[in-house]
């Protein structure tokens, strides 16, 4: 092996190999951040790496602490300039990336290098704040291997890098069971320990509590998953999958708003066509939950509003799993609070004169609200309005312009116009937003509902019937609810890539991938306090509180360490080949009546044996000499051990 070195590894200077390892580690952990950073900050970080590389190549001194301090202040200023804050999530992480580059540039000692490696571990964590997807996990696992290999390299500078990387792999493999024990048993605490930065949840998308023309068509261009639903038994057909979300009451001529609602005791409706299902909702930073119409069983820890929304106690900021049940057909529930009915008829003072005139035309001959409704549905069915993801911009009279001028829109245009017409005709109506449809994954039978399934429809209050769902988009464009948005919109619209009908094979691939991702989400990322309690009760630990969990964790972890220790001892317990050969020799002679006395040294023993077995005397003496040489010689050589073993094996005792 390598030559002895006079200095302990931690006393040596940072070698070029260590620097290469650190650079590789930093590049791996900083690369995902680079995609989120402005280009000039990325360049700055790369510049720091290049600077250090040059210092190493030229064997010049690292920068002085004052220069580094100056640069650090400059970095702080740069980050402030870009983000206008230092304490946000993104700005804090960018600052950390910059500081790790600075630390790399100025590192001198072995300990500095180790600190850079620890910073890399830290940066791995910061990546997980943005995404915890499987690809990220794999990339970060690779980063862990490289960082750990670098750390091993710092402790064993003369060992080949490949051996160090192997050691890192072995260590991580050994650490994995311990990590699993800790992951399963470490008591989970609910909620943040302190307030999170303002921008902590800024990346979350989904439906909003308002609706303006163009809002939904924007959202629908994303094929990000909104939630997934697993049905017990067959799921309902696509045209019945109306996932109810925010209910919008108030209209100012352009924007629909939720307005003040109130919580209401939930009374399960009567009816038929029950579906039981579990929803895994992606975080959207809002309180409402999505459920099929009409809800028959509320999820635990959820409440019900007067307009039939299911809401959580706090905004959904991490993936949430809940069970619910819905009925396809319900008994009429005609009662509605008069205030609500008044709100469901309110319109702006003026505007959209043509629509108001149309509504008045419908009202005049009608004998009931139902007839008005029928006229309206017929109007939408026959008016040949276009369905598009790129609706033309609308001016002041949004309803008039959509119905009579541009005649093209997305579902929010249809819903908005429909509810406006209803109210103008004196029929109480409201806008409901949510998702419609969803795609069944043929791998795991789970329905994925995407942002591109975002939808808006109307609910109309009819005397004796209560609130009735009416989907003006479905009336105008029946394909929307039967075949999905992508097939219903105009050719050439910016449909999300994977929603396009012609990419069937790619969707098959995606189905497999998403089935895996869903399991990952549920079992790994969704392993919170609740799931932990479930799992513990399933394996027989009732009411697992933190004391029980900690005790179990300590016990199992201790047992694991013990097993590992025994394992390492087992690998050590093998006697050396010289001793093994000698013991075989003693056994062989013992079988011929010359057992070795405990006090007898090898030389005396050999002489006695040679005297007793004169036929093999020469071999016996030679073996003893070899043994003495190998055992007590200045430097016992492995070759001599092999020779000894061979001689003992070949020893013939007549």
């Amino acid at each position, binding site marked *: *092996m390598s030559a*002895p*070195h*006079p200095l302990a590894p*931690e006393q040596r200077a940072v070698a070029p190999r260590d620097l290469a390892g650190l650079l590789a580690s930093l590049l791996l952990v900083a690369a995902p951040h680079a995609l989120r950073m402005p280009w000039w900050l990325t360049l700055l970080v790369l510049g720091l790496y290049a600077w250090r590389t040059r210092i190493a190549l030229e064997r010049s001194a690292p920068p002085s602490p004052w220069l580094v301090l100056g640069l650090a202040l400059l970095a702080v200023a740069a980050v402030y300039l870009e983000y206008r804050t230092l304490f946000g999530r993104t700005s804090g992480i960018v600052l950390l990336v910059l500081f790790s580059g600075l630390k790399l540039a100025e590192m001198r000692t072995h*300990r500095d290098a*180790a600190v850079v490696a*620890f910073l890399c*571990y*830290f940066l791995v*964590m910061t990546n*997980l*704040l943005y995404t*915890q997807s499987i690809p990220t*996990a794999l990339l970060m696992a690779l980063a*862990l291997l490289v960082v*750990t290999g670098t*750390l*091993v390299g*710092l*402790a*064993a*500078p*003369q060992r080949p890098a490949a051996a160090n990387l192997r*050691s890192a792999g072995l*260590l*991580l493999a*050994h*650490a994995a069971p*311990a*990590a699993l024990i*800790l*992951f399963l048993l470490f008591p989970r605490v*609910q909620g*943040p*320990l*302190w307030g*999170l930065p303002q921008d*902590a949840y800024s990346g979350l998308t989904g439906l909003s509590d308002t609706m303006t023309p163009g809002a939904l068509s924007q959202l629908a261009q994303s094929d990000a998953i909104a939630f997934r639903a697993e049905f017990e038994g067959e799921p309902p057909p696509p045209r019945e999958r109306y996932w109810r979300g925010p209910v919008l009451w108030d209209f100012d001529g352009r924007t629909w708003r939720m307005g003040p609602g109130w919580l209401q005791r939930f009374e399960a409706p009567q009816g038929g066509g029950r579906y039981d299902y579990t929803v895994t909702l992606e975080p959207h930073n809002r309180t409402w939950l999505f459920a099929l119409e009409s809800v028959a069983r509320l999820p635990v820890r959820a409440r019900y509003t007067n307009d039939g929304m299911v809401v959580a106690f706090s905004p959904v*900021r*991490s993936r949430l799993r809940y069970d619910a049940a819905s009925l396809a057909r319900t008994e009429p529930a005609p009662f509605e609070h008069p205030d609500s009915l008044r709100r469901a008829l309110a319109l702006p003072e003026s505007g959209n004169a043509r629509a108001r005139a149309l509504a008045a035309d419908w009202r005049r001959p009608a004998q009931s609200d139902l007839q008005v409704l029928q006229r309206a549905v017929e109007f939408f069915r026959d008016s040949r309005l276009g369905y598009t993801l790129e609706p033309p911009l609308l001016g002041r009279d949004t309803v008039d312009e959509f119905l009579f001028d541009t005649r093209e829109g997305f579902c929010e245009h249809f819903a908005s116009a429909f509810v406006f017409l209803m109210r103008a005709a004196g029929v109480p109506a409201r806008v409901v937003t949510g998702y419609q449809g969803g795609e069944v994954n043929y791998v795991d039978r789970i329905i994925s509902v995407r942002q591109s399934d975002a939808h808006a429809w109307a609910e109309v209050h009819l005397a004796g019937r209560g609130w009735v769902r009416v989907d003006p988009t479905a009336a105008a464009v029946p394909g929307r609810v039967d075949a999905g948005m992508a097939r219903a919109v105009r050719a050439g619209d910016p449909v999300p890539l994977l929603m396009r009908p012609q990419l069937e094979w790619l969707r098959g691939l995606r189905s497999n991938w998403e089935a895996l991702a869903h399991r990952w989400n549920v079992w*790994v*990322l*969704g*392993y*919170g306090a609740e799931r932990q309690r479930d799992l513990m009760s399933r394996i027989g630990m009732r009411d697992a509180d933190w004391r029980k969990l900690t005790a179990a964790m300590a016990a199992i972890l201790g047992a694991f360490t013990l097993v590992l*220790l025994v394992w*390492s*001892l087992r*690998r*050590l*317990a*093998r006697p*050396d080949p010289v001793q093994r050969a000698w013991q075989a020799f003693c056994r062989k002679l013992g079988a011929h009546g010359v057992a070795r006395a405990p006090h007898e040294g090898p030389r005396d023993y050999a002489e006695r044996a040679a005297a007793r077995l004169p036929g093999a005397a020469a071999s016996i003496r030679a073996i003893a000499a070899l043994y003495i040489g190998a055992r*007590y010689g*200045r*430097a*016992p*050589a*492995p070759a001599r051990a092999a020779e000894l073993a061979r001689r003992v094996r070949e020893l013939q005792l007549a």
Partner: protein
Amino acid sequence: MIRALLGDARLRDWFYGYRAPERGAITLGQRRVYIVPARLGWFYGATLGILLIGSINYALQLGFALTFLLAGLGLVGMVHTTRNLARLTLSAGRAEPVFAGEAAQFRLYLDNRARYDRPAILVRHQASGAQMVLDLAPGAVAEAVLAVPAVRRGWLPLTRVMLETRFPLGLFRAWSYIEPEARCLVYPRPERAPLPAPTPDADAGAARAQALGSDDFSGLRAYQPQDSPRHVAWKAVARSDDMLTKQFAGAAGIELWLDWQRLAPGLDTEQRLSRLAGWVLAAEQGGARYGLRLPALAIAPDRGDAHRAACLQALALYGTA
């Protein structure tokens, strides 16, 4: 308080299970390997703490996974660090005699009988701080040479040696103390002094002195009144105040007695031994046959490496039990 306690040598001996010097091969048992977190280990622990708090705060399940994987890594690293040292077999080799003022080269053989390699093992001599870092291949034996300064003549025992490793992660420091039975003979520091004249000694016979040849110049010695003026090294005299006589070797048969009694009376024991050691070297180099006479010991004239070693050993051990 703790530091003071730890500093106490007797307490430390008790804690580390002081053993008398051990003979033969020493295998480091699990119980002899001590392990504590290194300074980096504390840094690492602090990093883990922050990661854990972050994971809890953001309810980050992969963050938990990362934190726990790193915690497991620390735990496993501890076992691996112990493993890197435990069951290592050591034996001390012979240390060649040296002169006082030189460094004794103690050899330790580190025998790795395991199937895995043991990288970065630090061997340090506690008293002198002499150290060396070795990488041991699986099944290999490596030699550590500890250069321990030899100050005084006599036997120099190899005292306590520390073996230390921080492999694989540098987070823990495992160490063990051993004290193999090994010693090095330290000859007196030789004084470069001119050889004495071969004296007409009653026992050895004066005639031998005449046998000193005059054909091959071999060195200088102090002037004796009976020396021929032809042999006085006048050039050397010009450079120094001493009268020096050129000595010629050629006759192999010269016999010289290096005698304690004939040294100047003002010298103390160590100075005498140094002078005598210097003479032994000079005489051996000059090719003369020489004998050594000490107050209680006499070595008959002879020459060669064995004779030289015997004379120097007698000087080294003079008066030490």
